[in-house]
């Protein structure tokens, strides 16, 4: 029935949406950033515990669509233990993947987001938590927004 949708809603994403990983507040976080999308009402908080240059722990809280939630969940799994520079490099690769459908190098499970590029209206959903984590790791404890309201 929904053949063409299974690329967007990859089985792995549906699973992460239903049972998000690292979905909790991190009490000893030393970096926190928020990502919001005023149109969808997506709203996530990313909690990071940095030890020097390295992401020791990464969790998130919030609500939104299946794509943004699964993306956030995958992100917390894939960035743990990475250095700030590695997070930045990963961010660039993931952005390529989400906007074009491919990207250099092995992205592991995050590759499940490759179907998003065929749904332009949903690109911002998938990218939202990545913007937030970039802000958190760089110590810009701010609210990042995918866009201003327009409907």
């Amino acid at each position, binding site marked *: 029935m929904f053949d063409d949708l299974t690329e967007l809603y990859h089985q792995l994403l*549906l699973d992460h949406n*239903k049972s998000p990983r690292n979905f909790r507040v991190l009490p000893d976080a030393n970096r926190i950033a928020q990502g919001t999308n005023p149109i*969808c009402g997506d709203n996530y908080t990313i909690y990071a515990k940095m030890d020097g240059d390295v992401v020791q722990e990464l969790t998130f809280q919030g609500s939104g669509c299946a794509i943004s939630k699964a993306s956030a969940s995958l992100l917390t799994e894939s960035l743990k233990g990475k250095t700030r520079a590695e997070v930045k490099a990963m961010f660039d690769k993931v952005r390529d993947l989400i906007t074009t459908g491919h990207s250099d190098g092995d992205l592991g499970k995050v590759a499940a987001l490759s179907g998003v590029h065929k749904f332009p209206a949903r690109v911002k959903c998938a990218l939202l938590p990545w913007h937030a984590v970039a802000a958190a790791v760089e110590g810009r404890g701010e609210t990042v927004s995918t866009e201003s309201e327009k*409907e």
Partner: protein
Amino acid sequence: MTDRAPAENHAGGQRLTAMHPHQAVNWPALRQDFPILDQQVHGRPLIYFDNAATSQKPRAVLDALVHYYERDNANVHRGIHELSNRATAAFEAARVRAAKFLNARSADEIIFTRGTTEGINLVAAAWGTKFIKRGNKILLTEMEHHSNIVPWQLLAERTGAQLAYLPINGDRGLLEPGRLDEFLTSDVKLLAMTHISNSLGTINPVAEYCERARRRGIVTLIDAAQSAGHGPLDVQQIGCDFLALSAHKMCGPTGFGVLYGRGERLAETPPYQGGGEMILSVDFQQSTWKPAPHRFEAGTPDISGAIALHAAMDYLDGIGRGNIAHHDQELGAYAFEKLSALPGIRLFGPTMGRAGLVSFLLDGVHAHDVVTVADRSGVALRGGHHCNQPLMKRLGVESTARASFYFYNTTAEIDRFVEVIREIQMFFGK
């Protein structure tokens, strides 16, 4: 649903009038008037359920646009030549037609605008700046569209006035007429409210509200964006001072609309924008301006918009707006009933007497996921806050999914849509 008198029913909603028995209209045949409906999207027949955002346009309206640009195009009120005369006559004929459509007392009460949003901004900027003072209150309802909130916020900021909101009774989305007096305090100068809620489908008893406000000398404005073209609309029966509508939601073109203003209100209202068309004479330091409605129409207007709206109004009255209201509400009630039977769904708006739209949320599925998947099945829905963020806050939700109907939609399409909703629930593992 059978015919009923337009009286308020006990659920508090109000019929838009189905006073005349449902005349035989060949609804399926009307579909043929809309070329756009005959297409597939993503390989499935298009089911267009985003009519509250904008309606589709019948051939008659498209023809009027083409005819104008192919035969009569010229600037209005300026030329002496034949084409200019024709364009001017057609433009002013549309004004007379709009006055008749709304049962205004005179065509001078009809101002052409870019749409509902501009109509409300015009009242706020021109009438409001002159008459709203520090400490005055502007009374709205919790179900207003952003376009009937933000212009008043801007006015309040400029003048030191305050905003107050008539509350709704939770998910059913009804105002409580019993509480109106509580809010009609002596500092209230304006009541601005929507006729039909674009998120809830609530039909507000606006005539009663205007009457009660007017008795206290409160000026009233009705946002008719969702009601115009969906049923009879009579400004004298409603008794409002201002009423704004958008052509594009009633088979007309985008970027065009009407602001009705009661004659005595317009007479006391200063200009909105300055420019050509609206002046009597211009000197180096000072100008004098025309009376209403031209005082409020600076610059070359959207002539083709007026002409296309004229065609749309003729088209709608050809079907009969009472018939349209009846059919709309039948579709709304049918969809509401079918969706109510599903597990794991939260429905918004009145259970009875609703307009032709249904807002809902599925347990565990975000509205945008519903809309994305429905789109792949050919069903065009809307998901989001519908420019009703304060209302969403009041309902305690971020967004809803919405199916909104017009007379060319069918119960068969609703059946298919409900099937798709079931498939979506299954897809997301419910």
